[in-house]
């Protein structure tokens, strides 16, 4: 024997028959994530189809910007209706793909739904139930790489929601809804600018921070937001849902106290 001949049995892993030996409640986090994301989806479908999305000065975020003649006059984005009168479907459908796509391809959401919906893996060191795995190496998941372009659109959407909030702020008297819209806009912007793509664009792609001090400072700021990306993802998801629901309930007259 002049060389080490690897003993064939050495090629084997330790035979442990169970999917995991974890003793903690590892299933709790994916379960909560599943419920949270599902509720967002269910709510989203309902909200898109719901028609009471406007009550002056509030427009429900899921239906903003409103870009067709079918929108009430005050609800039209910049008073504008570029889609004219041929478009009669719910206004939310027009732009749904942009924030939706942004969140769908977001690095944090990818983690959360790969874990909670696809169980790949449900939790660390818990065996996944799939026989094969190719990750994001091929179609369709390779398309996740377009995240950056959704980010550019997400800035626009963030801008629209900020505009909506400012519009409400200008309107006197200021009601509770205004503050809800403002809070939502802040969280949405925090989530958007804390995005990994944004971090890359500001200065992440550079190898010499020292030669680009302004970009480096932007990167440092984005990195701080980015460290909270998960929290901001959830906070902004619930804030947009909450703001949307609030506006609709006011529009429907269900919430009717003064300064609502």
């Amino acid at each position, binding site marked *: *024997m*002049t*060389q*080490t001949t690897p*003993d064939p049995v050495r090629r084997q892993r330790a035979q442990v028959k169970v999917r995991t030996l974890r003793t903690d409640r590892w299933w709790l986090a994916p379960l909560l994530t599943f419920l949270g994301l599902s509720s967002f989806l269910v709510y989203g479908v309902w909200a898109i189809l719901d028609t009471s999305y406007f009550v002056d000065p509030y427009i429900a975020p899921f239906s903003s910007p409103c870009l067709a003649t079918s929108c009430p006059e005050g609800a039209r984005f910049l008073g504008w209706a570029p889609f004219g009168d041929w478009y009669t479907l719910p206004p939310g459908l027009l732009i749904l793909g942009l924030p939706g796509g942004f969140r769908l391809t977001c690095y944090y959401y990818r983690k959360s739904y790969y874990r909670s919906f696809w169980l790949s893996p449900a939790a660390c060191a818990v065996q996944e139930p799939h026989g094969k795995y190719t990750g994001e190496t091929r179609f369709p998941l390779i398309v996740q790489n377009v995240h950056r372009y959704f980010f550019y659109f997400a800035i626009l959407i963030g801008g629209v929601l900020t505009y909506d909030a400012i519009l409400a702020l200008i309107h006197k008297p200021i009601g509770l809804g205004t503050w809800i819209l403002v809070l939502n806009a802040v969280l949405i912007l925090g989530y958007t600018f804390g995005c990994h793509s944004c971090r890359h664009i500001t200065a992440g792609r550079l190898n010499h921070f020292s030669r680009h001090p302004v970009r480096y400072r932007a990167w440092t700021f984005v990195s701080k937001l980015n460290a909270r990306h998960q929290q901001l993802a959830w906070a902004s998801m619930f804030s947009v849902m909450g703001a949307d629901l609030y506006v609709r309930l006011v529009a429907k007259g269900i919430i009717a106290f003064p300064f609502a």
Partner: protein
Amino acid sequence: MEIERHEYDVIVIGAGGAGLRAAIEARQQGKRTAIVCKSLFGKAHTVMAEGGAAAAMGNVNSDDNWMVHFRDTMRGGKFLNNWRMAELHAKEAPDRVWELEAWGALFDRTKDGKISQRNFGGHEYPRLAHVGDRTGLELIRTLQQRVVALQQEDYETHGDYEAYIKVFQECTITRLLKDGDRISGGFGYWRESGNFVLFDAPAVVLATGGIGKSYVVTSNSWEYTGDGHALALLAGANLINMEFIQFHPTGMVWPPSVRGILVTESVRGDGGVLRNSEGERFMFNYVPDVFKDKYATSEEEGDRWYTDQANNRRPPELLPRDEVARAINAEVKAGRGSPQGGVYLDVSTRLPAEEIKRRLPSMHHQFKELADVDITAEPMQVGPTCHYIMGGIEVDADSGAASVPGLFAAGEVSGGMHGSNRLGGNSLSDLLVFGRRAGAGAAAYLDGLPARPKVDQVQVDAARAEAEAPLQRAGENPYEVHQELQRTMNELVGIIRKAEEVSEALEVVEKLKERVQLVGAAGTRIYNPGWHLALDLRNMVLVSECVARAALLRQESRGGHTRDDFPGMRPEWRQKLLACSTEDGTSITIEEKAQPAMRDDLISLFDRDELSKYLTDEEMAEFDRIAKS
């Protein structure tokens, strides 16, 4: 079963900093090189080094140069250092550090983009190139990645990554083989399979590190069983300075499971102070005369030093390690220790929490995770821990060659460089400087070798029988023998030594020798730690005997050797080296050797006043003659 056999030009035993640097050098000089190490590649004890690598680059203070570094090193070693090694070390360390950068190391930077350097005990200027407090990891990873880079080059040219340099990991060498008086190879076993392996190689570089596992409280990992020391002894080489063991002043003392683990000196370099149970900064009471004019005498002055080093003297917390260790020992003995038998090292009241986390990330992490102590909020409890052996194989300074032809040594396993006490930060630079020199020395030896020495089958059979023996007998549990050895050395040949106690230790060691012959290892040959320990015991007992015998003979206190019955340095002892050797492979004999006198231009670098504290009257007369001419 036939024994697996490999032919190489050079085998390097040990894959820490010195071993890897030696192997890189041998390979760069075109020699086929094997690196044999007990652990996985990249896990060597070097990763534990925290503070940095001392090199007089002058990046932070441009007054620094090799002569200042040389002086600091000699002073730290109490002039017992091999002056030629100290000279080479001081001169070559900057190049060795810079070279790492070209291999991908990322040191912390100064404002102008150079390698940053930090203060450390015993160094006159900020001198330690560092990466936070994980410099050793950076060093080992860089060298590891350099080995891989060379393998990639070989793959390009020969189609085989391992054509010129191969790592045999988790492989232990138990015997060196000789053809006449020359080295012809090494015999060992794979830890993983228990199969034996024979290396046919005319040159062996030992880079096995130290002996700390002979002590209970140690910062050293399990690998530090004195393998290289013992292999060299058994091959006929000498060990010198074995009585000098550095007890690092600040090891963790609590919880028991981490007792001994190092708290880096950078904690003190960055402002941490030592206090006893009465809250007193006691180090001011322990500045020895030889250092009186170099250290602050008041807390105010010491504190000012951190921001203004030009106009203030450094705080006594930054005295050489031996002084601090003895001071802590004395405080604890006087009943002013912490509840768990240490003293307090406090950085929490000295720096803002964020600053502590930034400057000492791995210490913060280590205390948080291992002891559940937040060092930004409360003091650490620390006490001395066996850290480093200054003694080791007697080698030629320029080539790392031991007295046995074909045998080379570098790093902690070699002796002489650090004299009686090593300065912090001089270890990492030592590894690089002498690792490279040993690799080059081995390559040069090969070039001048008339004929390749042959492996003697009789020696192989004997080595094999020796290694198999513990598996074949049902004997005493090796862990018990090990524990008794550790206790003995810790209690009887520890920081403070007395003739009676050391003699008692020698008696115990004699008995342990017999017990080692009888230990048995239950289980199979496959990854059997009991068997591995049984084999390591031979080495530990052998080097422990060297330490104890030398400690008994040296009737003075100097650096890492403190005799309660002979306090104080004695100049006549500075001229003497104690060299250990073994005739029969089990008992140690010690011979006094003369310390070579320093070259004239080097001794002239020192003040007369300073030298007069260390040298004999005759030597001083000689110095005056040199100074005049």
